[in-house]
């Protein structure tokens, strides 16, 4: 199996996100950058498949120079090699434009499976995997919690509202990983040492023949709408507290 895992480097979920002075981007000064948590499930699944069936895992990431750290993390987990599409302006760029570049980088690798995390926890779009699938002419299995491979086909379990569906497609296919797929391993110390020697190729969008397009343009970033200060519910006993709360929810907030 030849497996590609696309990863994104994102702010750690504990990060406080501050809007930069331009009002159009975030202040990256204090941010700790990590591999997108959902991508870890993709890396883990790829490593398990290759352990079972043989093959090779290549991780691909796009963005500024710092993205190499996320790629090294995947190499330390056990991936074999990495491709970095280096472009300083790519962070926060239009996802369809990023998908075009990724597709150009992935195509020559001839993968049987391309894994993604089901969405990145920064822009929350979740469109790159399916756009890459379209550009590569592959089937997509999105938001998958179980992968089964047999006879050149893949089955993927996908929870949807009120149901679970099992999708089936021929390989090659694009799969986006959802929490529950597996328990991602940590990079071990020997793994981290080995990762330093693993091949990491750097390409520019120009090398790939990809031009940036800006289908999505940020007009402004704003803090979340402010909430009015909360009210402390009064009451001497649990019964009183519950009765007063129920009354507020019924009569004041009118939500029950």
């Amino acid at each position, binding site marked *: 199996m030849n497996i590609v895992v696309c990863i994104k480097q994102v702010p750690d979920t504990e990060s406080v996100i501050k809007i930069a002075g331009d009002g159009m981007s975030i202040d990256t000064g204090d941010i700790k950058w990590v591999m997108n948590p959902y991508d870890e499930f993709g890396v883990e699944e790829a490593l398990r498949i290759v352990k079972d069936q043989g093959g090779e895992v290549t991780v691909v990431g796009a963005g500024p120079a710092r993205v190499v750290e996320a790629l090294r993390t995947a190499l330390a987990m056990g991936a074999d090699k990495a491709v970095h599409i280096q472009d300083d302006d790519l962070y926060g760029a239009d996802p369809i434009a990023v998908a075009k570049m990724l597709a150009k980088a992935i195509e020559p690798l001839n993968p049987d499976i391309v894994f993604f995390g089901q969405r990145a926890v920064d822009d929350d779009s979740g469109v790159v995997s399916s*756009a890459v699938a379209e550009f590569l002419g592959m089937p997509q299995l999105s938001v998958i919690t179980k992968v089964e491979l047999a006879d050149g086909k893949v089955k993927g379990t996908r929870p949807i509202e009120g149901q679970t569906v099992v999708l089936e497609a021929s390989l090659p296919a694009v799969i986006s990983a959802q929490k529950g797929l597996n328990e991602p391993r940590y990079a071990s110390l020997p793994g981290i040492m080995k990762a330093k020697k693993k091949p990491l190729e750097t390409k520019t969008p120009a090398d790939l023949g990809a031009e940036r397009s800006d289908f999505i343009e940020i007009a402004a970033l704003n803090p979340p709408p402010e909430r009015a200060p909360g009210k402390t519910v009064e009451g001497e006993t649990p019964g009183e507290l519950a009765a007063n709360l129920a009354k507020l929810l019924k009569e004041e907030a009118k939500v029950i």
Partner: protein
Amino acid sequence: MAGVWIIAEQRDGEFRKITYEVASAAKKVADELGTEVTAVVLGSGMQDACAELGKYGVAKVLYVDGDAFATYTTDAYTNAAGALIKDGAPDVVLFGASTQGKDLGGRLAARLDTGIAVDCTALAVADGKLKATRPIYAGKVYADVIINGTPQIASLRPNVFDVVEAGGEAAVEAASADAGEIKAAVAEVQAAEEGKIDLTEATVIVSGGRGMKEADNFKLLEELAGKLNAAVGASRSAVDAGWRHHTDQVGQTGKVVTPNLYIACGISGAIQHLAGMGSSKVIVAINKDADAPIHTKADYCVVADLFDVVPELTKEV
């Protein structure tokens, strides 16, 4: 033809609520642009249901009937809706940011070589173009985005846009579009647990955190949820402890939810959790720790032991 188009979502031949929300939002946008709403309905045996969409502001329905459209697949929907959109050249295309809409969005935008804004919570028209607002970083920031390319595509977060009744019947036109090759087929459909309400569609959510102490104690929340017709959610620590399934997780690495009422029980309010539930319309915090960050986000703070208050609240509602 142009105008504002919506792609309807149906299951088992019935429109889902998100379709009415999207139609209502589309009607507003169309009014501002001085145009009309056309709905694309892909389904099987749904001719009679289509005219109903007029009630929510849809002027015209393009209905494609076929067995291949009875159940959603990425390929059939992208092929058929994509071809109709190329042909009709609408200015704007809207649909729900349900699991279906999220699956379709990237594929369709790539097919049409245009931009998409996913999971929007507000729409406006500026200089004749759609401007969409979407929460990013799980709601830590709200981005106003301009969608370049034609058509402008946006998917709308469920349970945010009001369903507005306006107008009467839509003109239904049988349209023809090919489902094409289904590369990823639905092999099996398993129904969820009976009566279980999905978090992203729930109007009320009762959620538990580390303060629940053990899996069994979620019974208390199940009982309250039963009375309120609510879904039960959980914080990451409750999921990591193995008390609840990961599909119940609310937060930055779980589900981002927008219910009318969110009752947080024994949840301290880690930044990732606050991000995931922060856009709920009304938030109640039940936590004995008066200094817990969850109380700073709540509209109603109950500083008391959840094990005392929740059973009483179940009696009261």
